[in-house]
């Protein structure tokens, strides 16, 4: 297990280095420069000073090695659009809100989506199944930028039950969390249902029935554990996507998260910010996928990890 973890760690470093390099190259090839559309009007000597200030006058390979060196030390550089803010401090400021919202909405999606899918599969072909799948279709087809304002306006403003926006405490999480989770919830419910139906048709379920087990133990002990595998697979990336900031929902509910930072940094050619956020995203993704794989091994003994090295 330790050996496996170490090997995974090395692979993660290599992947990360590739991602950093790739982002660096791509960014340098983006049209325009960080000083905005008006940069032609900046006097030549002023611009030269600026370029020197940010190290943009050096040859590319020097910029690259300099950047890598900084990243290794945990310094993602200074933002171009907010000159006195470090990228790391922007992340530190925006990430907690995105993380909380993401965790909350993913939990919501799992806690509602999985039971819904399981329920639908057990009532396969009956009205309960159709109702559950109708909800799931709604969830997939209603985008969060429609659901968000509806929730914010009706539940938040008209009924006044919950805060319509901002980020000041747990109750502020509920509406954006739900708006964010609805799509995921629907995907999980559908996936779980399909997977359950598949497992329920397996021979080993028949074996379990032949043992005289009751319905509950068949579903609980034999079906769910096998059916949940594909759900675990997609849950990792979905989780990362939600915790690293979602532009639309964060904007609608005025959540001070990362999503907004990401988009505005792309608009303004904020090189350091884009690569900083990309690296951050990559790291979070790799960590989550690593844990997903470990959970996967716990659930499915066939892919138990590091078997040979134990």
């Amino acid at each position, binding site marked *: 297990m330790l050996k496996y973890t170490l090997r995974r760690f090395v692979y993660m470093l290599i992947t990360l280095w590739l991602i950093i390099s790739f982002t660096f190259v791509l960014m340098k090839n983006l049209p325009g420069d960080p000083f905005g559309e008006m940069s032609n009007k900046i006097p030549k000597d002023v611009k030269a000073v600026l370029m020197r200030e940010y190290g943009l006058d050096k040859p590319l390979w020097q910029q690259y090695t300099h950047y890598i060196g900084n990243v290794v030390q945990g310094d993602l550089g200074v933002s171009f659009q907010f000159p006195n803010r470090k990228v790391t401090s922007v992340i530190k400021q925006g990430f907690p809100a995105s993380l909380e919202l993401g965790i909350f909405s993913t939990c919501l999606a799992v806690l509602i989506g999985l039971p819904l899918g399981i329920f639908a599969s057990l009532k396969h072909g009956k009205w309960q199944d159709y109702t559950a799948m109708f909800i799931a279709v709604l969830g997939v087809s209603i985008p969060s930028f429609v659901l968000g304002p509806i929730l914010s306006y009706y539940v938040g403003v008209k009924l006044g039950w919950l805060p319509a926006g901002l980020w000041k405490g747990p109750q502020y999480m509920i509406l954006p969390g739900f708006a964010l989770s609805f799509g995921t919830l629907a995907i999980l419910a559908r996936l779980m249902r399909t997977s359950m139906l598949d497992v329920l048709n397996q021979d080993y379920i028949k074996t379990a029935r032949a043992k005289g087990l009751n319905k509950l133990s068949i579903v609980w002990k034999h079906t769910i554990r096998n059916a949940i595998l594909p759900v675990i697979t997609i849950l990792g990336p979905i989780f990362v996507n939600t915790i690293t900031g979602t532009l639309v929902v964060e904007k609608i509910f005025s959540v001070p998260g990362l999503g907004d930072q990401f988009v505005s940094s792309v608009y303004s050619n904020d090189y350091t910010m884009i690569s900083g956020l990309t690296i951050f995203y990559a790291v979070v993704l790799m960590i989550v996928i690593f844990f997903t794989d470990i959970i996967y091994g716990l659930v499915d*003994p066939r892919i138990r990890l590091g078997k040979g090295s134990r």
Partner: protein
Amino acid sequence: MSDTILSVKDLKVSFDTYAGEVQAVRGVSFDLKKGEVLAIVGESGCGKSVTAQTIMRLTPTPPSRIKSGSILFDGDIEITKLSDRQMEHIRGSEMGMIFQDPMTSLNPTMTVGKQITEGLRKHQRITGDAANKRALELLNLVGISNPESRILQYPHELSGGMRQRVMIAISLACNPKLLIADEPTTALDVTIQAQIIDLMKKLSEQTQASIIIITHDLGVVAEMAQRVIVMYAGKVVEQGTVDEVFYNPQHPYTWGLLRSIPRLDEMGGGDLVPIPGTPPDLFAPPKGCAFAARCPYAMQVCLEEDPDHTKLTADHSAACWLLHPDAPKVERPVEAGGRKHG
């Protein structure tokens, strides 16, 4: 009738599909004595598996449904009338089942030991330790070495033959009175098949359980069974002791079956003779004998009316118009004992 463990009378099972009703089993009757090994043979889709699974009420309802008939188990238990709850108490404790494909019949995410003890703990309400002890006993019984370590392993760590042994252990866990083996050797290598058959033979003698073995391998029948039922298109066409059916077959379908097995003692001499055609569509089974369309001896009456069983001896009967006193005598195209016995 105290020596009869199972009595199936005129069992009819249909599947309701969107396209209509599939009459999978169309009136099957047979008795099974205590300690007896009965083989049900027939080609794919003849209703043998459905019959067996209906005895354990394992076919999903809907779409399947028992149209009529009775299944009397252990004297007075009418299987067709039991509630799902009552059936759960019989399944696994009074009846055990072994399935065709050991690669898919075991839960991949549960240890072998747990899968064996699960039924025990439900039916006999024993402690975990006692159940584990029994599981070790069972693994020994089915010839698995190192049961102490095997019990902690997962199915994917075992070979196909081993898994089938585990399946047998599961089915025997609660000492069932009836064991149903649904093509237990079909998915295995030939050498493993022989081992499993030997094991089942040994166990049938040791445990005194009555066994129904479903197969399309006539070799398995000759090896294990005392009596055999030949099924075709959802009906029993011939039944009798193994000797009677192998050495004195009466139904043209049985002749066809016996002629289509290779014989090593007849090198070069005997070509395999397949039965031409395909079984009838069970959406709309024919009015007369279901085999008439493929039968080289079919007469007018065969197309019009389904023959009743003609009793030849106490055990032996066949459903064929050729056995009618007025029917023309035909030369049986298969030599006595389509395959060497024993």
